[in-house]
């Protein structure tokens, strides 16, 4: 049974650019899926439609068999840019989602465990400009998780970070996601990162984007970066690369 699926999703922007062409995909509950594809093929567009921020021209997205008609609290978002409010401290940024919506203020849970989970203890009162890129992204991750979303959508979440920080965060994200059981759809430009993170890698064609194939990653969890040396990892990477050609 799929938790999140899209059927025949197409989107043409008002200026005539067709970004997506009949995208059909299924994601199971608790699954981690990576989306890879050439630049400009419509990956961000697809995520925005799933998040309910953009309406498709044709087709539909379903979450738990309910059609997505607009933004819902069931999804959490993370972008390449941490998108923190510069005038708020780390903790205030993480709490922001709790203050929004018509039922704002209700069920404001303790964010301390979450801050610990992403390793930001001691920086609760720091302002975004006092954070490193990796810390800012971890703040954004905690903020995305504070509403306990069933579906976490990430658009190149670590794209702007250096390789070392990126590896650390990817490994950390894997644990977080396993602890919480969140379903994850992540866009990435790194094939290795896609294979390392995901249960399945979906490969998209050049614009107008459509799914041209998928690679199931048969690696046990938890995965460590040393897994990268294993033959299974290597063959998965090769399979994704072949589909991208």
């Amino acid at each position: 049974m799929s938790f999140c699926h899209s059927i025949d999703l197409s989107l043409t922007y008002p200026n005539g650019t067709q970004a997506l062409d009949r995208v059909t995909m299924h994601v199971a509950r608790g699954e981690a899926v990576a989306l890879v594809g050439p630049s400009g093929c419509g990956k961000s567009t697809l995520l925005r439609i799933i998040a309910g921020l953009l309406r498709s021209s044709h087709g539909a997205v379903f979450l738990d068999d309910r059609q997505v008609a607009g933004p819902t609290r069931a999804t959490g978002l993370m972008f390449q840019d941490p998108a923190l409010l510069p005038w708020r401290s780390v903790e205030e940024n993480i709490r922001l989602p709790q203050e929004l919506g018509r039922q704002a203020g209700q069920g404001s849970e303790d964010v301390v465990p979450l801050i610990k989970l992403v390793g930001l203890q001691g920086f609760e009162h720091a302002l975004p400009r006092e954070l490193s890129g990796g810390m800012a992204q971890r703040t954004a991750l905690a903020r995305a998780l504070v509403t306990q979303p069933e579906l976490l959508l990430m658009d190149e979440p670590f794209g702007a970070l250096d390789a070392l920080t990126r590896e650390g965060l990817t490994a950390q994200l894997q644990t977080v996601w396993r602890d919480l059981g969140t379903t994850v759809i992540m866009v990435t430009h790194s094939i290795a990162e896609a294979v390392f993170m995901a249960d399945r890698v979906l490969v998209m064609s050049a614009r107008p984007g459509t799914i041209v194939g998928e690679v199931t990653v048969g690696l046990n969890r938890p995965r460590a970066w040393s897994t990268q040396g294993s033959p299974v990892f290597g063959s998965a990477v090769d399979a994704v690369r072949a589909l991208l050609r």
Partner: protein
Amino acid sequence: MRWLPLVGVAVAAVAWQAISLFYPPFILPGPVLVAGRFWEKTVDGTLAFHASVTLAEAGLGLLGGTLIAVVAGYLVAKSAVLERLLSPFIVASQGIPFIAVAPLIFIWFGNGLPAKVLLCALIVFFPVLINVAAGIRAVPQPLRDLFAVNMATRLQVFAKLEVPSALPMLVAGFRVGGTLAVVGAIAAEFVSSTRGLGFLISQGNSFYDTPLVMVSVLSIMALALAFYAAAGLLGKLHF
């Protein structure tokens, strides 16, 4: 290093005093004479009275103009139709010296306080509007998306995202507006009035009371600086 500005002022004052010795006081009064006159006008309450008149004109104009401009700037940023409708006026406002409009306003609204407040508000309106609209437009899309997926209401987006994001631009607009409002009030008083620092200047002018003119100019400067500082306080608002 912190004292250097004061040293600069002191040197200028000494030089001014020295040069003034070569001219009669109604051409160039020295700082000592001006300071004496300042004291005299402060003690007899003249200065406070005229300064409060100008302060009221410029201050009320600045406040009213800013409030309306913030609302209008928000609407312009949100509505392409409204922006198109207003764009000729916004462009024209860049070229109109509003002071030149003062006589028209006096014809229509008399030359009392309301007319002068109106003129100041008009002068302040466009720079603040343009800055507020630009500030709200500059809110990055990811932040808007973030508020959207968290089901933020319009009011929450406005109060927690748009206002704080646009604040630096608003403060910049308010700064420019504050200075312009003082200039507008003085100019309006030149044109027609019986009170205010601008009136004091023209009075000093017609009686060859040059020290009085200088006292008024210094007071205007202090007023403009106070407005500037007030704008800075606005920027320190915390969200």
